[in-house]
């Protein structure tokens, strides 16, 4: 079940960490209202999505670092056609690709909260909003975005 006020309807696939835990620090962080992404403990390079090794220095014990959930819109789209039964009859919504200047410019996908027909400006500053969901397979949180100001 979604929390009251979730951006999209119930029934979209619920995220689960892989059995080997590759992305577990990310999902555990979101559940605590924190954003954690990979940063190599050896060479300091940021990388996203999560991977088993650092693509720059090839060390396997890539670290994680907490970053502020603030960024700017790098690109966006407004889906209209429902691609999942949960979206039938829902109408348009906004998906944004957010660049995190505080984390080496890595990018994260989320929804842009507010009116789905609002004009969207690439480069606009956005702040993260943690959206908590209950689910039979395990509760989880998503990271959504709202335009600053």
């Amino acid at each position, binding site marked *: 079940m979604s929390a009251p006020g979730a951006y*999209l309807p119930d029934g*979209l*696939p*619920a*995220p*689960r*960490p*892989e*059995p080997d835990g*590759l*992305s577990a620090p990310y*999902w555990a962080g979101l559940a605590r209202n924190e954003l954690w992404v990979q940063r190599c403990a050896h060479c300091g390079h940021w*990388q*996203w*999505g*999560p*991977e088993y090794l650092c*693509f720059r220095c090839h060390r396997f014990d890539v670290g994680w670092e907490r970053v502020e959930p603030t960024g700017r819109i*790098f*690109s*966006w*789209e*407004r*889906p*209209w*056609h429902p*691609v*999942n*039964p949960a*979206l039938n009859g829902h109408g*348009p*919504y906004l*998906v944004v*690709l957010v660049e995190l200047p505080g984390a080496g410019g*890595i*990018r*994260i*996908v*989320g*929804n842009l909260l507010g009116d789905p027909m609002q004009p969207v400006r*690439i480069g606009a500053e956005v702040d993260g909003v943690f959206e908590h969901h209950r*689910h039979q*397979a395990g509760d*989880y949180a*998503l990271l959504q975005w709202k335009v600053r100001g």
Partner: protein
Amino acid sequence: MERTLRGKVAVAGIGETAYYKHGRSPEPEFKLALRAIVAACADAGISPHDIDGFSSYSNDRCDPSRLSAALGLRELRYTGMQWGGGGGGVAAAVGNAAAAIAAGLADCVVVLRALAQGQFDRFGRGPKVDTVSGEFALTWPYGLMSPAQRFAMKVMRFMHEHGGGADAQRAIALASYHHAQANPRAVMHGRPLDAATYDASRWIVEPFRLYDCCMENDGAAAVVLVSAQRARDLPHRPCYLLGAASGSNHRSGAWSHNAPDYASASFGPVAPRLWQMARLEPGDVDVLQSYENFTGGVMLGVVEHGFCEPGEVDAFFALENLLAPGGRLPLNTSGGNLAECYMHGLELVLEAVRQIRGTSTSQVAGADVSMVIGGPMTTPVSSLILGSQETL
């Protein structure tokens, strides 16, 4: 020794089944594949017993051992599957087959693709699952699930960086539908499209309207490749492979839309290798088939192959430039994925061969250099160039 495929391998035959709307094939996928292969062999004047290899892409389900048994091949020598989904690998499948022939691994390799979606799932719908892990856990819960949604984000960024693009997308769609009206094989034959209808069509995901998105279809297509030497004794005007290249840019597959060269079809490092092998440049191309998963992808792929600057797409893709016979660069002359058939782009290779033979329903007079750009943004991507005897 120069390492190249240029002029070493030729297309001996092409074949396809009737093309159907998705789910409408009266026959199963494997039978469609057999029909296309037998037709391509008949076109080549070669017995199916002489095939000794199969090459495909996009995880084609037609197992080469079963194909080999069904067709009674004397022996099977080369089997190759190009990694990657969609049509990104269509030109690579031809290149891989040609490489096998040029290297002496096989003599007669069939490139094939078959689709019967009544038997299997649609591509354009999001998957119906309760939970998701890995790459897609970072996008699906936000309602970013389909190929259209995955690529709209790139095209939106391209439009932001360079300006324009909406007019180019419209012209690309109109060109495909225009050419399909001359092509009786085309699923959209007899269903013309005009600009007003395009403009009034619904959004699938901004910036893609309905007509910016490919069809999904049933059918099969096959191409028979042999050595250049052998092709000279076969019935058709020889059609040689001048170049093939595939791959993708640095970290193009980074999850959650983290490709560094983001607003791109990922042909950045691929296209220069294609031109180098073919010893040609964009101005030499007489006719282009460019895979339309989405019209915006055509725009990106054509830009990255150097046909025009990214800031001038709306002028370059003016409709009159794209139409056979007289356009500056006739595009998708069979109707392509939008209006002939979504055979994951192999129908584009067949059409490129027809242009060299002079048998297209929208023929470009005297076409000697005929190019195919495979599925843009669907990495690894690939492209190829075919040429007549005069280009060798």
